[in-house]
């Protein structure tokens, strides 16, 4: 059981009002809120040891470097990577994906194949389209069914000896579906293909073990897991990271520079050109510590309770349809009211102090599949309550009354 009273006190933002009403924050899949414990770490960094890292001989630089590298180890332990240098700091999931896509452009040739899923976020489609344009590789798509689940039997038939890469999100941002990545990884490996899993939506709910999954690349953003924006990570197996060429040139990523030749630094610095988001990296570690202090099993159990409660209550509203009805999903409810544009519903809910997301959630292919302009998406976190869901349900009823 979670101690909700104590947990909610950790998040100062939850006490504020919006449009004169207590905030109900149900846009957690877009970004999570930040607990005081993480805010304190950010303040402490800028108040006490702000310095550039890795190069300085002075005390502040050393302290900042130590904390930054300690955070890398926290991230390593959290995802159970074999080595700390397999964790590359990035500016977030999109950056991580682009780093891998860019690296593969040197490895792919015409006729090679890349597989992505129909459940992808734009950031997970566009880089691969660009990569295919550059290399002449072919992009294939795993289709989805009416429940918003991937058609895994079709996936199995898409794989062949030309398949070099498979990219799937662990959990769909638009629908909340949990994809069977264990199967996807195992099958891809039978054909020697590498697998990149986008864990941005999964990380707040699931503690993945990258070694047990045997995944080649796993990426996420800190701001989905109670950390700050602008920082994230790429986990890559050591062998793969050694194989990929550097992404950006700059300071920090070099071993030796002459005008004739530059030798690159070893992992992880080869991929970390320039001054990184030092404070962000340290706060990322603090955010994982915070989440682990609550415990991912407890978080998942409670969020599941919220999902069941919210689904049941929302479905009592006549004319409300939920998109994404897989049995394996996280605490995301994407829905529409019959004949009413999601933007209108979102506008009324905002007036009531309820933060939801409306629109296509950067996943237009999914919206095209269902032939809708978008959905209203309510996504719950472990600091939300059933009482807040009651406020949402009342708000949706009010929106329906006003708009129909």
């Amino acid at each position, binding site marked *: 059981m979670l101690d909700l009273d104590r947990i909610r006190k950790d998040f100062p933002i939850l006490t504020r009002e919006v*449009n004169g009403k207590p905030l109900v924050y149900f846009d957690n899949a877009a970004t999570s809120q930040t607990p005081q414990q993480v805010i304190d770490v950010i303040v402490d960094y800028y108040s006490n040891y702000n310095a550039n890292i890795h190069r300085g001989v002075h005390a502040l630089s050393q302290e900042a470097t130590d904390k930054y590298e300690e955070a890398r180890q926290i991230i390593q332990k959290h995802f159970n990577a074999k080595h700390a240098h397999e964790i590359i700091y990035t500016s977030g999931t999109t950056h991580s994906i682009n780093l891998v896509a860019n690296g593969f452009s040197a490895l792919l040739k015409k006729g090679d194949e890349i597989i992505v899923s129909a459940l992808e976020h734009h950031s997970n489609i566009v880089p691969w389209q660009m990569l295919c344009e550059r290399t002449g590789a072919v992009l294939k798509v795993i289709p989805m069914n009416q429940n918003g689940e991937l058609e895994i039997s079709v996936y199995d038939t898409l794989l062949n000896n030309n398949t070099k890469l498979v990219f799937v999100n662990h959990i769909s941002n638009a629908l909340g579906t949990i994809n069977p990545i264990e199967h996807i990884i195992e099958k891809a490996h039978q054909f020697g293909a590498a697998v990149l899993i986008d864990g941005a939506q999964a990380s707040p709910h699931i503690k993945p073990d990258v070694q047990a999954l045997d995944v080649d690349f796993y990426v996420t953003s800190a701001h989905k897991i109670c950390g700050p924006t602008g920082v994230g990570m790429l986990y890559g197996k050591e062998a793969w990271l050694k194989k990929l060429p550097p992404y950006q040139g700059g300071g920090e990523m070099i071993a030796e520079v002459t005008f004739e030749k530059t030798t690159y630094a070893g992992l992880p610095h080869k991929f970390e050109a320039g001054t990184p988001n030092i404070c962000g990296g340290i706060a990322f570690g603090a955010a994982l510590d915070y989440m682990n202090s609550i415990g991912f099993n407890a978080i998942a159990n409670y969020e599941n309770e919220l999902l069941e409660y919210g689904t049941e209550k929302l479905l009592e509203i006549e004319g409300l349809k939920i998109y994404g009805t897989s049995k394996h999903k996280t605490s995301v409810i994407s829905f529409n009211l019959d004949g*009413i*544009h999601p*933007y*209108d519903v979102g*506008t*009324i809910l905002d*007036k009531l102090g309820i933060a939801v997301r409306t*629109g296509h959630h950067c996943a237009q292919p999914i919206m095209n599949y269902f032939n809708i302009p978008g959905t209203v998406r309510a996504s719950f976190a472990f600091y939300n309550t059933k009482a807040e869901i009651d406020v949402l349900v009342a708000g949706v009823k009010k929106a329906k009354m006003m708009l129909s």
Partner: protein
Amino acid sequence: MQSIQEIQEEIIDEFSMFEDWEERYQYMIDLGKELPLIETQYKTDSNIIKGCQSKVWVHAELEDDKIAFTADSDAIITKGIIAILIRVFSNQHPKAILEADTNFIDKIGLKEHLSPTRANGLVSMIKQLKMYAIAYQTQLN
């Protein structure tokens, strides 16, 4: 003929009678529900102003020396605001349209809908109305 300024003041007066956001929004929703604001033949892809979330269509025609605007949206609140904008800007001289500001939106409590970051296409729509005004102004000269 009423000037843009006069119409804006009239709208501000109307909105001042509403006591809270609910009444304001109900009024806009009712405006939005009224008859189609644009003929189907003009509801084409080339007339779409793409906002991120709700679609907005605008069509303009020059009648004598005034521009007649018609428009529509797939979201009803957006449509309500469009109805208000059409009431203000339609059947006016291009020059008057170009010189007009949209501060009245702020005064009727709908400022948030005209923030450039609010992806509902309205900011682009006003820009489009002014573009038509520039085009027709050139034609009239």
